[in-house]
């Protein structure tokens, strides 16, 4: 197990380095940050001085190396636009995104598994078929469209829920949460559904097909032959076997939820990291973009690692026997 983790960590580092290099090499195509930083009345000298000061005159491998040197020490530089520490801005924005992601992930996983199991057990039932057909909509509609439709229906027409923002937040010192106020909770509903709907339908369809596969296995037949009740068979024997492959996909989808939050946050003007990133692109705020991309890569790599370790907990066959 230790060998495995060490090896995976090594691979993860390599992936991070490559992902970072690719991200860095793209920044030159986004535009020149200096155009935005200096106003109309700039001189060529000013431009040149700032360029040298920011280190933008150097080739990108050198920039990348310097950036890594600083980054491993926790220093991600100053935002060009806001002039503040990037890490400080991130810490301020992170709670919004994390709360949104956590709520929509919980919604996606719980409802996805429950509906998946239901549609698998009642395979030919009317309700199950209805759910399956409806789920096609969830899979095929893009997130932003779902968001706009939800806003149109619940905010514009019915006026039940707010269409943008986080509502009132409570500051807990290092974390500001929207979970403690009514307006904060209300504000969470639409964006979490918009963000989680696709993942929910995906998980549901996956759980259904895996479960159907498992229910065909001999050990399920044998469990029936032992006289176990359908309930024990479905929820004890079948569900656990179903979860083995499903856990990988869920893990990767959690990463996707945070990464795709960009779109949802834009639609709902949610003050999180995704919105920060979109604004940073418009302003060519390289330190913010770099930090965001690094954060997303680290997250994906970590989730993958955790999923691999989780596997061993669910499936005893993958536990290396320590004889």
């Amino acid at each position, binding site marked *: 197990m230790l060998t495995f983790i060490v090896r995976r960590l090594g691979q993860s580092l390599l992936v991070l380095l490559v992902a970072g290099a690719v991200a860095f090499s793209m920044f030159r195509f986004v535009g020149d940050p200096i155009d935005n930083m200096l106003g109309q009345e700039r001189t060529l000298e000013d431009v040149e001085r700032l360029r040298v000061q920011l280190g933008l005159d150097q080739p990108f491998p050198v920039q990348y190396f310097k950036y890594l040197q600083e980054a491993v020490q926790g220093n991600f530089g100053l935002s060009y636009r806001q002039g503040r520490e990037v890490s400080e801005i991130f810490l301020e924005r992170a709670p919004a995104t994390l709360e949104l992601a956590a709520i929509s992930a919980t919604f996606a996983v719980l409802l996805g598994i429950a509906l998946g199991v239901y549609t698998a057990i009642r395979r030919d039932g009317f309700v199950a078929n209805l759910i399956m057909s409806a789920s096609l909509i969830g899979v095929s509609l893009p997130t932003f469209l779902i968001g706009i439709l939800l806003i149109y229906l619940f905010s514009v027409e019915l006026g039940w829920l707010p269409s943008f923002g986080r509502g009132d937040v409570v500051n807990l010192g290092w974390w500001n949460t929207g979970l403690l106020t009514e307006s904060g909770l209300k504000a969470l509903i639409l964006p979490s559904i918009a963000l989680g709907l696709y993942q929910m339908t995906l998980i549901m369809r996956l759980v259904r097909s895996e479960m159907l596969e498992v229910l065909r296995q*001999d050990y399920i037949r044998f469990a029936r032959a032992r006289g176990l009740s359908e309930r024990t068979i479905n929820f004890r024997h079948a569900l656990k076997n179903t979860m083995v492959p499903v856990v990988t996909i869920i893990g990767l989808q959690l990463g996707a939820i945070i990464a795709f939050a960009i779109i949802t946050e834009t639609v709902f003007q949610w003050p999180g990291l995704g919105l920060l990133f979109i604004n940073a692109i418009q302003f060519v705020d390289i330190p913010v973009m770099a930090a965001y991309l690094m954060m997303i890569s680290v997250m994906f790599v970590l989730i993958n690692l955790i999923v691999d370790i989780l596997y061993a907990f669910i499936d*005893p066959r993958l536990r290396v026997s320590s004889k």
Partner: protein
Amino acid sequence: MTDPVLSIRNLTVEIPTRRGLFRPVENVSYDLRPGEIRGVVGESGAGKSMTGNAVIGLLDPPAHIAEGEIWLKGRRIDHLGAEDKRAIRGKEIGMIFQDPLTSLNPLFTVGEQLVETIQLHLKVSSDEARERAIALLDRVSIPNPAERFNQYPHQFSGGMRQRVVIALALCSDPSVIVADEPTTALDVSIQAQVLDLIKELAAERQVGVILVTHDMGVIADTTEEVTVMYAGKVVESGKTDRILGAPEHEYTRSLISAVPRPHVKLKRFPQVSYGGRETEFKIEDLARNWPKPEASSSGKLLEVKEITKQFVAKSSIIPSWNSYLTAVDHVSFDIRDGEVFGLVGESGSGKSTVARMIATLYGVDGGRILFDGEDMTAMDAEGIARYRRQIQMIFQDPFSSLNPRMTVADIVAEPLLHLGILPKADAKLRVRELLDRVGLAKDAWRKYPHEFSGGQRQRISIARALATQPRFLICDEPTSALDVSIQAQILNILKDLQEHLGLTMLFISHDLPVVRQMCDRVGVMKQGQLLELQETQALFDAPQHPYTRELLSLMPRLEQLPG
């Protein structure tokens, strides 16, 4: 005589299909007394498993009992509701399935599965259930039961898992056990142990056992009464000795004559002629267009010298710290031109690994393999391609060795096109010709593998292997997944190939009577080593190595069978 514990009276099972009602079981009756083992024998599709499923109430819808009665200890159970049937399952009637590798849930410990079943049927505390479970494991002769209790199924070998399955079936002292092909997936030596255990338990606990099997040897060794089924109907039923010794029905006679005999060598395998479903294999037509077999320079087509294969058992960060498992350990043998060379041994003995190394599916870790004098381990890519064309393989499982998404024509043509032997148009002609020669219907080429039976699929595998006109054929357990009747057909085809086309063969099997009939010389393998190599006759008459003697002694004795 004691009263029967289970009575089946005129049982008929129906499955409605689009083409009308199909009756997989028709008018079947038999009794089972406490402590008695009744064999139910027949080929696949004869309805023998379906009868067992009907008894335990596990018919897959839309199959249902249309007529007849099933009585368990004086209580009629065939018309009970789903809940009442479930209450009987496991408590009154236990079941043992064919494949012990798949009938246990891999994610729960053996103990959890036992305790769960015990607590379901008997109202006992979890401590008592645990004690009972350990006692059961001990009873089915699992060593260190208390320790094994906490282990997962994958930590048990096949035979041990089947013992666990038996323990599970015994959890609540059932009065009937339905054992559906309980030893088909096991090695001969393990098979004998498991059957002995079933016999012991039946006598000791007075459990009636319905033993469903297609293996006449198992029937002869284990059962007192036997029911022979064909196409859903009982053709003959009675004392095992009487049925095997003096069969009355023509089908039974034909079935018994198709069982390969361990003692006498016959020129061809007698086929089951009942029902008239034989398809002709046109060997003469095939031989006409076959290139004349070239003799190898030394008279030995294949020479295997000291080959070794190691698999990584536990990998480590540093390659030299890896621990290895030696699957094949310095094995050497020669195969002469036109010879059928047999390799026998239990699973895990390395016989399939040897075959895969010769077929270049596995690399060789040590030693050399010479084909017609050329060292195949030192060949470049081009040489390997030429070599592969000469060597073809037939696998054990006709269900998984054919790609389900390819048509039969594409499957058979693949080696031709892949190795660039024939252009597409010619390959098409060759494929149709081959399929016709191995006895498949005219339109077989455009069908998919799932539309064929096991025997027909094995014919497709043979056609694929013959497509490149090889000189050497590797048959890895080619008939172990097939019924006796189909087995005879396939083995006869292989014999014809060897005789008329001069093919040289490596024949791998754990079925000693089959090896006796097929092979000229035989090698015995155990734990990666070749223990003994003899002419077939000599090996069966005077085995030298103690292990060979042990293997031969475990061969089902078919003394009752007429010569």
